[in-house]
């Protein structure tokens, strides 16, 4: 390697395996084991993006999931482009193409940076204050402007060709995070025989141990111990190890969502493997070992490229063999930065200054730094930084003011201490407690069966963390009902770094012209937060929304605690009183592909088809979705449009015969000695006297008195009813029946069975229907005397058993032939063949709708909307008056249910017969009244009737039955349409045809 920033040896990279990659088209080289971020740093590149609001040049800040700046798009091919990936988590592969985001025309020259010059004019809440008025400007000016300027990466333009899978899993103990605490917990749990799942978002297990150079565990160098620990776990068949797997969500009752990235790190992904796998793990017990995140310090100019977190810099050096610069300045409130300084110093990086904002620093790391001769300045802060696309120097000054001194450097490392990662704990609805000593929110009372261990609960010493992990493992195992092994303390040596830190903004952050960033990703400065408090905001929840701090895709991982510190100081309120915003899933962004998994394309939603579907498709039927069903809507012939096809189909049914696939109707078999009693209690109708072989139009109400469903019910035998429901209503009707049967009337001996899928239903309708069927049935007399309207019989058709109903939803002589589904297609084709001499047409749902509307038959959900009573719909005749009770009866007795001004079903004739009103239109009595007009009803169905040679409509109109002959109006966009109120039965009012 030629780069001066890459060390000669050390780290977990393989220098002998170079990898080519490009960044914004520039060809670069990294090595096996690099992340995109470490490879860029190895090439001396810090500038990787532009900030969201001010388009300020930004560099890599961190080395992990908390990265707010280095968001990149990674492209494999035209269809495989993933925006907004954190470069710190993108594993390098040969041929990787990455590009920066939020810049135009280029990263180095970005015209959006002009926003920085006008930044005094775009303070916190700018959008709320500015884009308010005039209202007209929103559509034409503000929204297009905001849309163009907003957002980070661009979405891919092609459908995602990759495969995503999901799976469910169960385990005794799930451990999120495989650092020292997680590994120690996993070893303990696994040795107890527990089924363990251990996941970690990184490519390798080990967490902080991966950057460890000097610590030892059980007498072994930490990284050797790590290797042995992983080998032991990998050799245990009851342990599932999931690297590259983020525990992104903690859901109720210990359901954990894991996002496993299977192939993103491979140069040539195998076609056999999914790109990602979504795991839904139900764990008996959970151990959260999420570690801690280093906090930045808030000082003026703290966002220049080249300024990064101290422990991240140490990770780049020790794990990836990359120096962050040649000459660095360190600013810290925590001993950890000294350890980073020592490691960098040993790697040949010049330490220009260590500015410590604290008054004392006497821990082992500062002592060692002193002995190494590093220039330490206590009570010192940074009051400003220099540089354009890369930091060139800083101004150091005493914490309490005084003159500043300029120090040249090409990198600044900062550490404000560590914030325990309590995201998953908080998602589990556990209670966070403020620990004044640790200056941190730590896990308090649990809401789920989980416990935290290690740094995620504020413990930082290596020996302490390992012991804590082991204890958590034992606790979880015991809680899962297994016997934990005898406690064994792991000997470990590591440098004690203490728990110091700083929350809030350093002196000078509020100075004129200063830009001291709290939230890098959303460009929120300390001054923005101070402004919000001056404008009267007090709750952190309000301040967050007003300033957008912590609301970016990183959810404030690096910023939330500093924002709290700034607000707390400004308000003079202690941090726990200011509050903490809620952590929500996902911990880091999850692709839609992963969440959708296989639920896309034909697998997105189940599709229900009838046995006649393929026949209809072959006939050129146009289908519509009705619930999950595909139903033939109409059968166009020779270039017909829908209106022409429907007109032809309607006339054919009225004059000859048509055949219709009614298979989708819901069907429920109600059987048992108490079947009639059950039907009596449920439906409004009287069933006791209905003879076997006869059927009735049934109306089902809810107990509030409103129509719930309807359908023809046939009594097959004394103890057996064949109940039909609407196509969409079948599941809810069965659920309601089961509800009453199981919970209100368990004394009734009745069985309910859904038979929707068992019967194919072929409706044969029209004056010639009888002739068509006559030659096909065996042992069935189809004559009007033997099989009158609303009756049924059993026998055979085309050699197969049938339940044959004489019924009609068209107003014509009609039959509904029920045959077992497996015979549906054959019987349909036989009927079709027999019908051809009679000019039979196949008709679809659209024609069915028109034919029933001509007869004033309602459709539940079209004429009814959950507020329509049987009387409103003109169905009072169906009610069994002498019954003491049925579901809904008591409600129908309420005064309001019988008010004369209730909306009642009527017919409407447009005065111009060629006008078809839009369904859903409102009906008014006076078209000249002022807007807003007072509607007295609405149009529920509206069609052109070929039979009548004019348009018809059904409407629910206040006091409608008393308005026969009145002229009302339907206001439309093109002016009002005058209509005449009429009977809802437009055709064959005497019902002669149906009884033929």
């Amino acid at each position, binding site marked *: 390697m030629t780069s001066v920033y890459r060390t000669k040896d050390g780290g977990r990279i393989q220098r002998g395996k170079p990898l080519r990659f490009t960044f914004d088209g520039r060809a670069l080289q990294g090595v096996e084991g690099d992340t995109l971020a470490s490879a860029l740093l190895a090439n001396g590149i810090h500038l990787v993006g532009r900030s969201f609001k001010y388009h300020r040049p930004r560099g890599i800040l961190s080395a992990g999931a908390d990265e707010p700046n280095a968001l990149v798009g990674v492209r494999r091919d035209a269809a495989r482009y993933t925006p907004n990936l954190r470069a710190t988590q993108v594993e390098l592969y040969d041929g990787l193409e990455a590009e920066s985001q939020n810049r135009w025309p280029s990263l180095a020259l970005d015209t959006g940076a002009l926003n920085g010059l006008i930044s005094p004019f775009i303070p916190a809440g700018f959008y709320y204050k500015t884009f308010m008025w005039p209202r007209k400007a929103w559509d034409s000016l503000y929204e297009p402007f905001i849309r163009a300027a907003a957002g980070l990466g661009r979405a891919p333009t092609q459908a995602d060709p990759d495969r995503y899978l999901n799976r469910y899993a169960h385990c005794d103990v799930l451990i999120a995070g495989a650092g020292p605490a997680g590994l120690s917990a996993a070893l303990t749990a696994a040795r107890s025989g527990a089924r363990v799942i251990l996941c970690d978002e990184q490519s390798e297990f080990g967490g902080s141990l991966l950057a460890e150079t000097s610590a030892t565990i059980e007498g072994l160098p930490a990284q050797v111990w790590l290797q042995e620990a992983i080998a032991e776990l990998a050799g245990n068949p009851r342990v599932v190890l999931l690297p590259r797997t983020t525990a992104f969500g903690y859901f109720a009752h210990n359901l954990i969502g894991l996002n496993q990235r299977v192939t993103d790190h491979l140069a040539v992904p195998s076609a056999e493997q999914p790109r990602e796998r979504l795991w*839904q793990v139900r764990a008996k017990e959970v151990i959260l070992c999420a570690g801690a995140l280093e906090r930045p310090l808030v000082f003026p100019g703290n966002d220049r490229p080249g300024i990064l977190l101290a422990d991240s810099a140490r990770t780049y050096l020790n794990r990836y063999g990359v120096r962050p610069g040649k000459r660095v300045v360190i600013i810290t409130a925590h001993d950890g930065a000294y350890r980073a300084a020592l490691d960098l110093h040993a790697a040949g990086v010049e330490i220009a200054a260590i500015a410590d904002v604290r008054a004392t620093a006497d821990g082992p790391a500062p002592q060692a730094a002193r002995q190494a001769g590093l220039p330490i300045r206590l009570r010192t802060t940074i009051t400003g930084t220099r540089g354009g696309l890369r930091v060139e120097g800083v101004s150091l000054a005493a914490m309490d003011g005084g003159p500043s001194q300029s120090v040249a450097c090409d990198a600044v490392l900062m550490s404000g201490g560590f914030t325990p990662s309590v995201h998953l704990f908080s998602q589990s609805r556990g209670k966070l407690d403020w620990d004044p000593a640790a200056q941190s929110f730590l896990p308090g009372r649990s809401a789920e069966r989980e416990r935290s261990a290690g740094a995620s609960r504020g413990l930082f010493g290596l020996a302490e963390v390992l012991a804590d992990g082991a204890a958590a493992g034992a606790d979880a195992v015991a809680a899962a009902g297994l016997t934990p092994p005898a406690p064994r303390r792991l000997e470990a040596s590591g440098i004690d770094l203490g728990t110091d830190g700083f929350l809030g903004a350093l002196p000078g952050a509020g100075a004129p012209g200063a830009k001291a960033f709290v939230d890098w990703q959303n460009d929120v400065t300390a001054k923005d937060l101070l402004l919000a408090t001056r404008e009267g905001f007090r709750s952190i929840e309000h301040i967050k929304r007003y300033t957008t701090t912590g609301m970016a895709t990183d959810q404030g991982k690096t910023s939330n605690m500093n924002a709290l510190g700034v607000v707390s100081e400004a308000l003079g309120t202690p941090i726990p009183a200011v509050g903490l915003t809620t952590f929500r899933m996902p911990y880091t962004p999850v692709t839609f592909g992963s969440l959708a998994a296989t639920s896309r394309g034909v697998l997105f939603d189940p599709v229900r088809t009838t046995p006649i579907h393929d026949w209809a498709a072959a006939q050129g039927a146009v289908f519509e979705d009705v619930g999950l069903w595909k139903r033939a809507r109409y059968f166009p012939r020779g270039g017909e449009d829908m209106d022409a096809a429907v007109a032809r189909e309607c006339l054919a049914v009225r004059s000859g015969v048509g055949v219709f696939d009614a298979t989708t109707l819901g069907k429920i078999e109600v059987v048992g000695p108490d079947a009639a009693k059950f039907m009596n209690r449920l439906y409004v109708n009287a069933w006791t006297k209905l003879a076997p072989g006869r059927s009735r139009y049934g109306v089902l109400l809810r107990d509030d008195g409103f129509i719930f469903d309807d359908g023809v019910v046939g009594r097959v035998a004394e103890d057996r009813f064949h109940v039909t429901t609407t196509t969409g209503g079948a599941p809810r009707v069965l659920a309601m029946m089961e509800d009453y049967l*199981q919970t209100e009337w368990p004394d009734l001996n009745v069985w309910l069975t859904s038979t929707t899928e068992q019967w194919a239903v072929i409706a044969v309708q029209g004056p010639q229907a009888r002739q068509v069927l006559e030659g096909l049935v065996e042992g069935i007399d189809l004559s009007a005397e033997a099989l009158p309207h609303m009756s049924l019989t059993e026998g055979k058709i085309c050699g197969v058993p049938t339940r044959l109903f004489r019924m009609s939803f068209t107003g014509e002589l009609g039959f509904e032939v029920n045959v077992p589904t497996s015979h549906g297609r054959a019987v349909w084709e036989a009927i079709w063949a027999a019908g051809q001499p009679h000019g039979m047409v196949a008709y679809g749902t659209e024609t069915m709708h028109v034919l029933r509307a001509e007869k004033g038959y309602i459709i539940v959900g079209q004429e009814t909307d959950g507020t329509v009573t049987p009387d409103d719909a003109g169905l009072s005749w169906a009610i069994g008056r002498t019954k003491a009770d049925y579901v809904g009866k008591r409600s129908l007795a309420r005064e309001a249910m019988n008010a004369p001004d209730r909306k009642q079903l009527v017919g409407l004739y447009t005065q111009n017969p060629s006008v078809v009103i839009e369904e859903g239109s409102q009906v008014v009595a006076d078209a000249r009244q002022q807007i807003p007009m007072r509607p007295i009803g609405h149009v529920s169905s509206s069609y052109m009737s070929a039979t009548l040679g004019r348009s018809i409509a059904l409407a629910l109109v206040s006091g409608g039955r008393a308005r026969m002959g009145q002229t009302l109006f339907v206001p439309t966009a093109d002016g009002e349409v005058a209509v005449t109120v009429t009977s809802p039965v437009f055709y064959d009012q005497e019902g002669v045809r149906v009884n033929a």
Partner: protein
Amino acid sequence: MLLITCPYCGPRPELEFAYGGQAHIARPQQPADLNDDAWAEHLYMRDNAKGAHAERWRHTHGCARFFNAVRDTGSDRILATYETGTPRPAAGDLVGGAA
């Protein structure tokens, strides 16, 4: 997703179940005997407890049986499940004791 123990089938994920509203509300034997207020009370008025709440669930995509559960509406913990028609368990018989 809740983990609900069907009294007939055992623990199953929430997506197998349908919620059925508050438990232990019996439909009056003679609704006609109730005045409008009493009927409205039966139809519409429900508890909105913070804490233990007895409610109906149906194992729709399992045994299809209705049953009752006591759930802590604050924590979503299921404190007990029991068969329809049996009385609500005493507080001491709930998971974790009194709730």
